[in-house]
């Protein structure tokens, strides 16, 4: 249990919410309902447990009274001194004398006991001196005259004895429940014994008393003697049986409950002080608490419905809380793997909604930052690395130095000095690597130096011109954006052409498409040109995948990539070419003035450019 509790903190929020709900509502409610029901039934039980014994006591008093009256019945015999006289006789001279006496006594008994209407007497027998006097209401069988031998000398018992049906073989027609009252008739005057009188009492009068007790007709009511012999029972088949439990009953006056699960019974008992008989009342608790049980079942049913309903509500609520969190977790995992193109739908304005909102804007921000800083810088660095490799092309160095060497051999000192000066300036430009942006004139000087050296080397085979249509000191440009293009033109041009002409034009113009000023470097040669297929391929690669590699168009791709990464897709290289007549490469960059070089350096902001340059366009 405790172990589980410590684990509780590791459970899912959904489970926690549902468990908490369960602990806080369902269990207390169930407990409360159970306790209330228990309390209620036990109070009903207690009420009945006190009430029934009182009823029993009254009923038992009633029964006792009836039996008191019944016990007085034998005394009626003494009303007739003639009957007493006959009973005293012990011998007869002839049969007729005996028969006459029998007739007399029998008719007396019939008159006295049987004919008097509502009397519960079934029959009367007197056994005296081997004579049997009798008067009965119904046919009978099984009177055992020898079972009660008569002896005039025996001291008469003054008390009546009750003989239960199972103690005698006597049976009446119709099998009515009865008890037999045995009373020895004492000769009060002679202090002797006149005989034994048996009065058989029909017990059906008890059923009225029992019926009054048995309102719902569901209880078992029985009357038994102190030994457990059942004298009368609501279940007629049990009359005469013996209650085996008589020795284990916890009490004989009061109520108790048997603990046998569903068959629990409320048993009440009353013992008569006079007769010692026990009147018992036993009813199933189920019957007693029937009304309550109905209520309980309805309540349990409602409770279950309520639990189902409220549990589903709680599950839905918990689900609503936990599901966005779960989705958020999933999305975060995606982001963790590098996919920033995720979106958490916002359905609500609650805390979950706010969280989703914040997450979405955070992802957007991260995406922007990565876009703007990380990726750009990375590629710029790569581009710069390769650019640097190009600045000091070993091939170019070797060729230049060889040219210088030849000039020295030929003694052209002026040329040597000029070339060394130019090469030195180029190297310095390359080494002056700290600033990324330089004034346009510096880039132009560099390219002029390069072209001059090549001109010296190839003499008449190379011609170049540079046309400046803008103030080259007022505008800035990234470094080394023209040299790769020129190198490319020389490399292909000199291979095929006897005489290569390269013209470079720098101008400012307005792009009508998006209404902004641009600086354009247009490098035109009269080289072999580029076939249609290669040109298409080239332009496609400019637009689709500005990746840097080392194949033939490396120089162009490098420049294009650097410009687009720095300024956006709308800038960069554009190649136009006609086979065998030449190629024109236009490099466009935004207008960068000296005063915003620093801000551009810090953060390449297209908007700034746009703001600044728009006026010129108009």
């Amino acid at each position: 249990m405790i172990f589980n509790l410590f684990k509780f903190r590791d459970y899912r929020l959904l489970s926690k919410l549902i468990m908490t709900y369960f602990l806080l509502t369902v269990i207390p409610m169930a407990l409360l309902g159970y306790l209330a029901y228990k309390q209620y039934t036990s109070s009903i039980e207690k009420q009945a447990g006190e009430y029934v014994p009182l009823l029993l006591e009254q009923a038992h008093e009633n029964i006792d009274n009836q039996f008191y009256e019944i016990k007085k019945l034998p005394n009626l015999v003494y009303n007739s001194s003639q009957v007493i006289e006959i009973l005293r006789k012990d011998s007869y001279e002839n049969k007729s004398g005996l028969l006459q006496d029998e007739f007399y006594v029998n008719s007396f008994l019939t008159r006295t006991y049987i004919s008097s209407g509502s009397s519960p007497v079934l029959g009367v027998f007197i056994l005296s001196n081997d004579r049997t006097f009798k008067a009965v209401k119904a046919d009978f069988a099984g009177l055992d005259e020898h079972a009660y031998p008569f002896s005039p000398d025996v001291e008469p018992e003054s008390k009546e004895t009750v003989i239960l049906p199972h103690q005698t073989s006597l049976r009446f027609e119709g099998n009515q429940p009865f008890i037999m009252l045995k009373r020895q008739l004492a000769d009060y005057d002679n202090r002797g014994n006149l005989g034994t009188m048996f009065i058989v009492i029909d017990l059906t009068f008890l059923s009225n008393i029992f019926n009054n007790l048995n309102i719902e007709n569901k209880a078992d009511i029985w009357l038994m003697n102190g030994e457990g012999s059942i004298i009368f029972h609501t279940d007629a088949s049990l009359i005469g049986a013996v209650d085996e439990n008589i020795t284990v009953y916890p009490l004989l006056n009061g109520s108790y409950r048997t603990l046998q699960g569903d068959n629990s019974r409320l048993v009440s008992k009353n013992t008569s002080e006079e007769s010692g008989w026990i009147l018992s009342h036993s009813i199933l608790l189920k019957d007693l608490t029937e009304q309550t049980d109905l209520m309980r079942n309805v309540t349990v049913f409602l409770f279950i419905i309520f639990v189902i309903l409220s549990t589903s509500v709680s599950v839905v609520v918990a689900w609503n809380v936990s599901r966005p969190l779960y989705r958020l977790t999933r999305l975060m995992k995606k982001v963790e793997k590098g996919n920033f193109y995720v979106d958490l739908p916002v359905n609500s304005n609650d805390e979950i909604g706010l969280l989703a909102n914040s997450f979405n804007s955070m992802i957007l921000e991260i995406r922007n930052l990565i876009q703007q800083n990380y990726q750009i810088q990375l590629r710029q660095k790569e581009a710069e690395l390769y650019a640097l490799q190009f600045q000091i092309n070993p091939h170019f160095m070797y060729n230049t130095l060889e040219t210088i060497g030849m000039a020295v051999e030929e003694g052209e000192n002026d040329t040597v000095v000029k070339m060394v000066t130019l090469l030195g300036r180029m190297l310095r430009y390359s080494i002056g690597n700290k600033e990324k942006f330089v004034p346009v004139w510096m880039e132009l000087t560099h390219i002029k130096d390069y072209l001059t050296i090549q001109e010296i080397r190839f003499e008449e085979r190379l011609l170049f011109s540079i046309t400046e249509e803008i103030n080259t000191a007022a505008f800035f440009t990234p470094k080394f954006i023209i040299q790769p293009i020129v190198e490319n033109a020389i490399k292909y041009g000199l291979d095929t052409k006897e005489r290569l002409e390269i013209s470079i034009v720098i101008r400012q113009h307005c792009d009508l498409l998006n209404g902004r000023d641009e600086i354009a470097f247009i490098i035109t040669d009269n080289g072999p040109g580029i076939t249609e297929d290669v040109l298409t391929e080239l332009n496609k690669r400019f637009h689709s995948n500005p990746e840097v590699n080392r194949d033939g168009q490396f120089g162009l791709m490098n420049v294009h990539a650097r410009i687009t990464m720095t300024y956006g897709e709308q800038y960069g290289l554009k190649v136009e070419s006609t086979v065998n007549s030449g190629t024109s490469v236009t490099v466009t960059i935004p207008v960068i003035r000296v005063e915003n070089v620093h801000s551009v350096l810090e953060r390449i902001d297209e908007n700034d450019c746009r703001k600044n340059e728009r006026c010129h366009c108009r």
Partner: protein
Amino acid sequence: MKKIVLVCLLTVLAAYFVSGCKNGLENTKYKIIYSKNETDSEKVEQQKEKSYTIAIIPKVGGIPYFNEAEIGAMEAAKQLNVEVFFEGPDVADSEQQIRIIEEFIEKRVDVIAVSANDPEDLLPVLNRARNENIKVITWDADTLPEAREFFINMVHPETLGRHIMDTLAWNTGEEGDYIIMTASLTAANLSEWMHWMLVQQEEFYPQLNLIDVAETGEDPGEAYIQSLKMLDKYPDLKGIIGNGSIIAPSAAQAVREKNKSGEVAVVGLSPPTSMREFLKDGSAQVATLWSPKRLGYLTVVLAEQLLQGKYPEDWQDVPGVGIIRVMDDVVIMGEPIDFTAENVDQYDF
């Protein structure tokens, strides 16, 4: 939060175990809901432990009537498990009775039941007994009411007196001279019966004529002698009433002696055994009495009940006796029995 939950759970668990253990310890078969207090039985048992002593004093010892009464009393003593002393004087005399009563006071008996020879003589001694916390009742013959709790009478005196006069009238043809012989002129019961005999005679039998009253004491010999004298003295005598249990047999014997059987009717109080031979040979006509055994028995039963605080009630069914009547403080045992030649054999007292 978690601690609270833990505590709650532990509490519930604890409660469950506590209740479970309780159930386990009890006898689980029954649960008593309501029990009626039973304390009466102890009291009854306490009372039963003590054995009572009851002293019964007849008018005189040794005569059949009181012998039979003693038999009945002893029967009851055995059945009720009480100790009964039955002791009477040699002659029917108050002084001797007083002496016997004094002895019983010394013995510290619980009840003294006396058949008084004189209603007044016994007063002082009986009062002394009562002061000593001894219950006093009378039977057979009463004292003055202030001396006793109640009196056990055999029959209603009016019924008996009038009935005896009737038996005389039947046997004399309602006319002629008769005498009454009584055992005592002072004994309360005898006097009262005699009174009602005379009332009945005056009322219904004007032809009958009382010519003499003789007192004999409780002595059969004396009664016999007196009877002979009377028969000599009144030759035309038609009837003799014996008011006392020993008189009728003696008178009948005298009548037989004088060969006047049938001429002189003899009726009166007497036990049947004493009268059997005279009834059969015609020297006596009717004897009237009750069962002295029954009387003795009843006396002991009522004495024992008195000790338990129970006074006799009208229509009470006394076991072994039958239904008794009670009028004020007088118990009446039953109706008188007539013994004649036909039925005398039924009775054994």
